[in-house]
Each structure stands twice: as C-alpha cells, then as structure tokens.
C-alpha cells in the first residue's frame, strides 16, 4: 500500500453544510426563495453518494465523462481511402509497416520509429531514420481519429502522412519509383497488391507509379486504423462512476491520482482540459505553448507553415489521389490560414500512452513528464510569437499529483494480437 492510500480522504466541510442548513431554514421561515438552494442540494447529494468515492461534483463528473474512452465513437470510414477498412489491405499494410526494404539504406521501416513495445513510439528525443529528423515520433495508436497529421498538421489523412515519411530524405528516403520496384521484386507483395488494387503500373507510367505509391500508403493506413486505444485505469474508474457503483479496488484512483485529476479538470488551476479534452484527450487543434527550441526556429513556424503545405499538397483530401468527394473535405474548406495564433503552434497530442512515449513535445525537448508539467507551471515566453499559456496556480504537491493522474491514462491497445508484433517470416528484425 502506498503512503497516500493510508491517508484520510478529504470529507465535505461540515461547517459549510451547517451554514447551508441554517440559511435554508431561515429562508423557509421568512417565505423568501433562495435561488441556488435546490441545485446546491442536488449537487451535494451527488458528491455524497456512496458510489462517488472521491466526492466529485456534478460538473466534474460531466467533464470526466467527456474524457472517458466510452465516448469515442466507432471509427468512421475514411472517405479519402476506400481501402481503409479492407482487411486484405490491413494485412498488406502490416507487412509494409515492418518492412525495412522501404528505405534507401534497407534499415528503416515505419516500425523503427513506431515500435509496438513502446506504444508505437521510439523512446527517442527525435525520430531517427536515414538521417535525424527534427520531430519527436508520436504514437500511432488512435491516430485514425486524428484530423491532421504531423505536428504542424501539414497532412489531412493517415495515408498521405505515410507516403510523406517514405519519401522524406531524413526518414525512409525512398523515391516512389523504388517503392514500386520493391512490390515488383516480391512475388508475395505483387500478388497481394494486385488482388486489392489491380495490376502494377508499367515502368514508364509515371502517373501509375504515383498511384501505386499512394496505394502502398493507403494499405499502411488500413493497418494503422486497426491500432485503437483500449480502456485505461482512468476509464474503468469513470465507467464505475457512470454506472453508479464503487470502482473495483484495482480501478480506484489513489489520493494522488484523484487530486491530480481535480487539478486537470479545474478551469481555474490546471486548465489542462481546455486543450486536452475528448476521449483522446486532444482537441485536435494547434497551440503555441512556448516550447523551447534550439537555433533560430526556422522549422518552428508550426501550423502557419503546415496549412500552407497542406493547401498546396497534391495528396490532400481534395487532390486527385484522394477517394473523397469535395463535400467530404469540409475541414479543408473551412480552414483558417492566417493569424498570429497559428505561428509557432503545434498539435495538442493525445495524453494516452504517455508513460512510454517520452521524451515529449514536438521537438522532444522535454525528457520526462515532470519536465512537461514544470513547463506548464512556469510557462516561459515563446521563442516565436506569443505563448498561449498562463502559469499554473498549483502547489508542489498538486504538481506531483497531476503527473500521477497522467499515468492512469495508460491502457492496453485494442488491436488484433498479430498486429502488435512484426509479421513472422522475413521480418526477423526486432521492433
């Protein structure tokens, strides 16, 4: 048992209840209505219910429900990828995801930076492919729910993200023509490709080669769509509260975790929920939080540069390689591409699977979660434009408790077991 578990949990203040009772009686005697009386009593009764072991009020319960994984809707088909839910494409994508032949030096696969054992991250400050990139590798789990890809959101689909990584000189450094050669050389790949997408293009068919390259990325995306988040301790705890039953002993939050959650939910103190909301704990938006960076910040422009790249991308939702109809691309249609708030702004990442996904932030500049919470607590000035952060008003204890809560968001992965490891034959390299 941890030291804090033996501590007495805070109980509602009796004096406050007495004051409320006396006021109520006085008001009834005088025949005057007190506007807040009925809801206040209701609020108290929820907080005192036997199943509500940590005394959450209605508002906190509502917010917790919003973060609960049960609120995650079933994954909708990706309109840009008609092969997204084809099981044959997912199987093929699984092979491609772990295949180092899809790199110029034959050593880099998608799984090099998205290792299943590390919750599909790499544990490194910056992702290392053929060269050293300038970005930290985020998790792929639940990424199918994302609206934007890469830290600056310069891609709007999983497949267009995958093909950018394959061609990037710092990642796979693999030209599309070479990718198609890999398909041609392998009898298994050829057969799989042709059964899903049709015949491979001729060697001089440039348009066909690009389309085949896109199909490879769509197969990888079909595999990645199978990697979904499963309930963590926090979710099991909230589910118990929703069902109005006491959480099982293993699911009950410790005092540190529950107090950390309180800070997380608070609009006055932690304010974490402003950007980390919804069941993936990300508002899928871009914010400048003053993350430090070395040098002059040439590639630290963030969202403002990401939007420019996205709108000019031939592989975006409206492009000819996308399977979407124009009316499916509303996100692109209503994009705001100007404004100082977009300068130096990077995507709010999911807070699930944090314990193995460090170092943190888009440039991996924070080694531990403590460094992250400390950054929020001090909220330094931004190197580019203006940071949105205001300093946390929390005590040293709450600072530690907040981190304890974040660990309750680490859960298993909801995916077929075979997809959580490298495919057997021909993929001896460990990930």
């Amino acid at each position, binding site marked *: 048992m941890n030291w804090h578990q033996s501590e007495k949990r805070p109980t509602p203040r009796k004096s406050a209840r007495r004051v409320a009772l006396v006021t109520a009686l006085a008001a009834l005697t005088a025949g005057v209505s007190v*506007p807040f009386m009925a809801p206040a009593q209701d609020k108290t009764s929820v907080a005192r219910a036997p199943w509500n072991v940590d005394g959450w009020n209605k508002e906190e319960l509502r917010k917790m429900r919003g973060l609960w994984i049960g609120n995650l809707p079933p994954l909708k088909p990706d309109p840009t990828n008609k092969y997204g839910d084809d099981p044959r494409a997912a199987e093929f994508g699984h092979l491609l995801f772990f295949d180092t032949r899809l790199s110029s030096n034959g050593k880099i696969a998608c799984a090099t930076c998205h290792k299943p054992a590390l919750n599909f991250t790499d544990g490194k400050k910056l992702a290392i492919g053929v060269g050293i990139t300038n970005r930290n590798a985020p998790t792929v789990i639940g990424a199918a729910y994302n609206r934007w890809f890469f830290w600056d959101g310069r891609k709007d689909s999983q497949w267009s993200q995958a093909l950018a990584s394959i061609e990037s000189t710092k990642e796979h450094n693999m030209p599309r023509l070479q990718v198609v050669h890999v398909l041609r050389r392998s009898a298994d790949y050829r057969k799989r490709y042709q059964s899903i997408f049709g015949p491979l293009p001729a060697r001089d068919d440039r348009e066909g080669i690009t389309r085949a390259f896109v199909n490879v990325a769509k197969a990888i995306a079909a595999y990645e769509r199978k990697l979904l988040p499963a309930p963590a301790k926090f979710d099991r705890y909230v589910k118990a509260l929703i069902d109005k039953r006491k959480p099982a002993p293993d699911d009950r939050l410790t005092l540190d975790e529950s107090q950390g959650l309180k800070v997380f939910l608070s*609009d006055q103190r932690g304010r974490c929920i402003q*950007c980390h*909301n919804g069941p993936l704990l990300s508002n899928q938006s871009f914010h400048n939080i003053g993350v430090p960076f070395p040098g002059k910040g040439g590639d630290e422009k963030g969202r403002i540069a990401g939007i420019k790249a996205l709108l000019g991308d031939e592989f975006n939702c409206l492009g000819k390689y996308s399977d979407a109809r124009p009316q499916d691309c509303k996100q692109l249609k*209503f*994009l*705001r591409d100007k404004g100082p708030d977009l300068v130096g702004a990077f995507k709010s990442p999911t807070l699930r699977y944090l314990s193995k996904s460090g170092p943190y932030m888009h440039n991996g500049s924070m080694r531990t979660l403590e460094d992250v919470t400390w950054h929020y607590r001090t909220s330094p000035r931004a190197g580019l434009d203006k940071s949105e952060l205001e300093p946390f008003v929390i005590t040293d204890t709450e600072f530690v408790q907040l981190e304890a809560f974040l660990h309750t968001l680490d859960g298993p992965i909801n995916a077929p077991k075979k997809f959580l490891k490298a495919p057997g034959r021909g993929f001896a390299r460990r990930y």
Partner: protein
Amino acid sequence: MRLIGAASILLALASLLPGLPRASAQQESQAQTSQFQAMQWRARYPSTPLPKIGNGLFTIRIVSDPSALKIQRLEAIIVEIRRANGRPVNDANVAVAVRARDVERRMQTAPRITRNLGLGKYRVEGLRFTMHGSWLLEFEVTSQSQTDKTLLEVLLK
C-alpha cells in the same frame, strides 16, 4: 441584528398576504434554475461583461438550437439578422470571427455564411469549437451600404 430580524418577519408576513401577484411554483423554479446555471457559468468563467461593439444598426440571434452544439465537431448554425427597427435583413454580406470568451483563443476554422435562407435567416458553417465554455461570435454585417458589428455568445457545455 434587530433590523434584520424585523425585516425577516415583515417579509414572512408579506409572503402570506393574499392578492399579491406571485409567479407560479413552476415558473419560479425554472427561473431559479436558469439563474443558478448562469451564476455557475460566471463562477467558472469569471468574465468581464459582454463587450459592447457596433452602433446597434443590426440585431442577431441564433435560430437553431445552440444546446445541440458540441466540441470537436464541424458545426453549423442558423442566425437571424434584423435591423434595429425589427425588419429582417435579406441582402446581408456577413463576415464572421469567433473567439473564446475567457481565454485568448481564436477558432482555428474560418466559419462563414454558406446560404441565405430568406426572411433574414442565414446558415453559418465551419464552426469548430475546441473547448467547453463561452465563445463569442462577432458578425460584421453589411447591408445597403451600412456596416456594423454585433456579437453573439454561445455556451458549449
């Protein structure tokens, strides 16, 4: 203390007097609940009063159900624009800018009027709220060479 006691007794007696106009219990309860909710929001988001902008040439209100709005979805609303004299504005050119009320944050989409529905009603599409709380929708309305700004507040629960 004596004064407070006397006032309480007087109030109690006044409430017993017949013939005085009194709201029904249901109305009173509804008013109390909405007042409570408003207070709750203000307590949570200690805002300054809604800023006054424009010259009051136009009024605007949401016709669609604002409680149906959710965070992290691309939303659309229907608004009704009228002149100060109550006449609907059917030829408005409208620019929309949206920001959170209590934190310095602009909406990262660019919402705009996508359809003129007639009788002063317009469909606004492209709203994507990224957090709960109060959001301000600033409309710059131009009609018959007159331009004015007006604000709408939306609460995302």
